[in-house]
């Protein structure tokens, strides 16, 4: 049984966001991180130094590993920020600023 069924969730209609140009479905209320996990995506940042992939680590806003660019604004903590209809989510390269 998946967690939505387990908790008896009856979410409102799904909406669409994009991740690196790909359209994915989002359930209302979920954070950007939860939307990406539900789509099978676990990495959405590459580190400044080694260019290594990162995603959720602490899940509660403490570690800043899940930083992501949403609607052109970099350094958003994916585990805290709620996804909104039409969000353009992009893998954050390094600092997220073209440098």
């Amino acid at each position, binding site marked *: 049984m998946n967690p939505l069924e387990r908790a008896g969730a009856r979410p409102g209609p799904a909406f669409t966001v994009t991740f690196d140009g790909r359209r994915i479905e989002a359930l209302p209320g*979920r954070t950007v991180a939860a939307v990406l996990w539900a789509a099978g995506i676990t990495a959405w940042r590459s580190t400044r130094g080694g260019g290594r*992939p990162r995603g959720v*680590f*602490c899940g509660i806003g403490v*570690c800043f590993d899940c*930083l992501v660019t949403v609607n052109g604004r970099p350094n958003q903590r994916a585990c*805290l*920020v709620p996804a909104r209809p039409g969000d353009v989510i992009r893998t954050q390269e390094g600092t997220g600023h073209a440098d």
Partner: protein
Amino acid sequence: MRTDLAVIGAGPAGLAASLAAAARGVRVALVDAAPEPGGQFHRQPAAGLRARRPEALHHQWRTWIRLRDGLAASSVRLLAEHHVWCVERTSDGLTVHALLGPDEEEPAEVHATAVLLATGGYETVLPFPGWTLPGVVTAGGAQAMLKGGLVVPGPTAVVAGTGPLLLPVATGLAAAGVQVAALVESAGPGRLPRHVRSLAGKFPEGAGYAARLLRHRVPFLARHTVVRAHGDDRLTGVTVAALDAHGRVRPGTERHLPCDTLAVGHGMLPHTDLAEGLGCRLDGLTVAVDGEQRTDVPGVWAAGEATGVGGAALALAEGHIAGRSIAARLRGTAPDPGQWAPAARARARMRRSAAALDAVYAPPARWTDRVTDDTVVCRCEEVTAGAVREALTLGAGDARTVKLLTRAGMGWCQGRMCGPAVAGLAGCGPTPSRRPFARPVPLGVLAEQHTEEGHS
């Protein structure tokens, strides 16, 4: 806004304190970063998911209902999505500085006569090769995503590390349909008998988890550890091995467990940044408080994990005592501790069992032996264990000097993730990291502070 009491943190301690104080006539503002009250322990599914059975993934549900309904019926003003970055002493009391979420750009202030710090804690994870791979998450993080987002990162997980949190995380993931390939606990059962008296109250809870692990067919590997996480761009599996009595890997016991998720944790640390900013005395890593939960700074109380990690029930007792003390002190009277004697007895009992759990679930000795030189220790600044060791050979004798030489701890998380690891590699105990702000603050917000003193 102006209020009598500002409570920072809407988890069990903050909720209990708010209700106890408000019931005695105190005007309370309850400030929390999350959109909904509950803290980490009572984190609720996002409202938009409209969960009809949220209790299926929760613990202590009746306690939560009592707190939730109590809050709704009270005069407490909930200030949700307020990310507090500093509490300041002013001439007429205390000012709580926050940023409004989720954008965290617009400032908000709460002026209060008294403040209760109920800031909770966060998880410690000690590094091991592969721990930065996507798919490796903290045990509490896996649980937070499950409870709040009703989502899991993949179909197969290993839960590992040490501590009582691993049990609810493993059973919670299993109940949500994840195949939990193993629960890997580095502590052995050998230490339990020494603490039987202190832990007597915990045995029914432990037996409940044991039954659930059996029901979900989760293998329990005591005195084992994850030696390495494997994968290229994401986790594909872990190597686990048995530990001997000295914390060394027993040769020949390594085996590979395929998994897409590793939920790992090695205990909890308290959030003490706001207390340190106020100048509150710490006792080791936790905020020092007296029998009324008062810190040594006038007008500032603390309760819950910030004063010592001990779980939700202890936080409730401490919060309740703090709320009653605050109500009396704000009236200018000394409280009668006899009125909260049951809560004080519960607090004493649970502090004893927390101390016993700490002793049972100490991280394995010699864990640093398994941290290879190429393992990243500081996740933010990508500082490897090799670089930390090089700093030590150059003469760095503590975490602060290592930081100055390597940048370990200078990144976004301000050393919250790597602090225990750097201290361990340096061979010294963890020390509080003095952080003037509890979270990143936009320069524009700082520039607007105290404009009357400015010279623009």
